[in-house]
């Protein structure tokens, strides 16, 4: 079995039985590309001389060689282009990295196209040309994979393994019930921060195209697997097919309170923007619980809705100080008249102020 899988990964090497470590890696679903290094092209010639070759294998080898040559040409062109570009940019061609190439292309061909894929690019040929599967059958034409005749062996293998895990987990659950044990609630699989990988990503991982229906059955099976009470036992396998929803782009540091001349703490935030309004906010502690907006109280706002919003903001902050001795005091726009209100002519109603959301 191991030998078969190793052949699946690299069929030509597999003939010499020189594989050891890659057998373990072959558990990963990503199948290899056509090989491109020189020793293997020699192997191709050796194979070609044999007369016992199956027709399918011969065709495959022919295709492999063509692809190999094509990739070699592309690679050579890319290397030459890279050196040329480095010379143009006045850099050392030997230390010119892919990042430098991207920067150079962005500089030489500035593009305002929204879609990033549509912008000019220069990438190594391995990234540009899609991956292709290695041979799935031996020289006699016999397929390596037991699900070969499904047409999508890698895809169906995932489903097959998932169902096996479901059966195993059910058995385990039965055993636990017999022992009168319950799953640990602390270990329950937390899936809320992630989602199943998209169809396109799954396809590239499998090196197989799948239909929408097949993708939905993948989701169904995986959902079923993840919903089992003991699914945390195969957490790694499940998380392999999930994508995290969190993408941290910024870290926020809380402002350190300063002391004023009376020894009270205060925090000022300037240029708080909401739609067309700008405000500077100062919060003092201990405070009196009063609000000042441009030297006026809550009645600074004419509309009831704005007053309601302003008082709710006040209430929410006040609520956090509930039960504590110190109370916050608020100053809105104390230093300068910073709330800018754009007046807009309205029909028949005189002039109406437009105020942004929570702009206090």
């Amino acid at each position, binding site marked *: 079995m191991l030998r078969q899988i190793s052949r699946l990964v690299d069929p030509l090497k597999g003939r010499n039985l020189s594989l050891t470590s890659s057998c373990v890696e072959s558990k990963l679903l990503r199948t290899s590309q056509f090989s491109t290094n020189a020793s293997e092209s020699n192997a191709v010639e050796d194979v070609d001389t044999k007369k016992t070759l199956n027709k399918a294998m011969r065709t495959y080898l022919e295709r492999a060689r063509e692809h190999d040559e094509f990739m070699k040409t592309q690679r050579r062109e890319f290397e030459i282009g890279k050196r040329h570009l480095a010379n143009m940019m006045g850099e050392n061609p030997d230390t010119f990295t892919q990042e430098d190439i991207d920067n150079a292309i962005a500089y030489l061909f500035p593009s305002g196209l929204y879609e990033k894929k549509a912008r000019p690019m220069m990438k190594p040929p391995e990234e540009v040309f899609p991956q292709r599967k290695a041979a799935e059958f031996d020289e006699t034409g016999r397929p390596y994979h037991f699900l070969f005749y499904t047409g999508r062996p890698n895809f169906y293998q995932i489903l097959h393994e998932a169902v096996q895990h479901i059966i195993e987990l059910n058995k385990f659950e039965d055993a636990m019930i017999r022992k009168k044990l319950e799953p640990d609630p602390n270990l329950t699989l937390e899936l*809320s921060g992630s989602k199943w990988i998209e169809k396109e990503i799954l396809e590239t991982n499998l090196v197989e195209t799948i239909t929408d229906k097949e993708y939905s059955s993948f989701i169904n099976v995986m959902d079923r697997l993840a919903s089992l009470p003991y699914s945390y036992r195969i957490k790694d396998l499940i998380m392999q097919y999930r994508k995290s929803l*969190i993408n941290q782009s910024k870290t926020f540091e809380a402002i350190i309170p300063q002391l004023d001349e009376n020894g009270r703490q205060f925090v000022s935030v300037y240029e708080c923007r909401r739609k067309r309004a700008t405000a500077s906010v100062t919060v003092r502690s201990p405070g009196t619980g009063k609000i000042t907006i441009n030297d006026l109280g809550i009645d600074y706002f004419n509309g009831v809705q704005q007053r309601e919003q302003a008082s709710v903001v006040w209430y929410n902050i006040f609520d956090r100080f509930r039960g504590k001795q110190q109370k916050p005091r608020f100053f809105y726009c104390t230093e300068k008249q910073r709330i800018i209100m754009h007046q807009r002519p309205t029909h028949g109603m005189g002039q109406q102020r437009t105020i942004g*959301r929570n702009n206090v």
Partner: protein
Amino acid sequence: MAGINSLFKTKILLKPNTFSAIVQNGMAIFPSYYIEPIYKKEDQEALKKSGEISEYVHMPTKAALNSQTCSVSYDPILSLFTNYLMRKGQKELARNLVERSLEQVKRIQLERYHKCNSDEERAKIELNPKIIFHRAVENGKPLLQLMPVKRGGVKYQVPVPISEYKARFLSMNWLIEAGREKDRTKVRFWTQLARELVDASNNTGKVVRRKQELHKQCEANKAYAHYRWS
């Protein structure tokens, strides 16, 4: 100009990094997979207690509307009614009208309250105008509606069940129309609306009559009911 730029910026910021493609959702600023905000403190507490909050943590959420607050005085049904009442985007006017009608309701009820002779009668009178409003809307909700269906070149008015949302809309819209019926130079809108609210809360008045008329028509067209599916 700065305002336009800032609006533009917010639009760009809305594009989440975690999603590969942005789904256009009509004229809406937020894509369709954004969930409604949970702005009430009680709702948030309830979610925290039940443990459902962990599901909402990573959901992209729409911003709360200008009018939505966690204030105790906020009533989503009343806010909806204000929005139905609003014309040409004059929200402050609409809000003012609603508030004045609720004040008027309070006056009417207080007048009745003080006219009562016994405590039993007084106990029956509801003095909270918001409760009166909710009762009025509830009493005005129809159970069926008529849908025109063309069969053999003739349009039949076919009775069909009504959705909760549509029923509430009809009830509120009838209240508004009833309020507008009188000439406003003689009877102001809020006065008339207050009367209608009180009447409807007692299961009388124009709105309830209108609902009953619709029910009667539905009853009369009962024979066409099968056109809904055949």
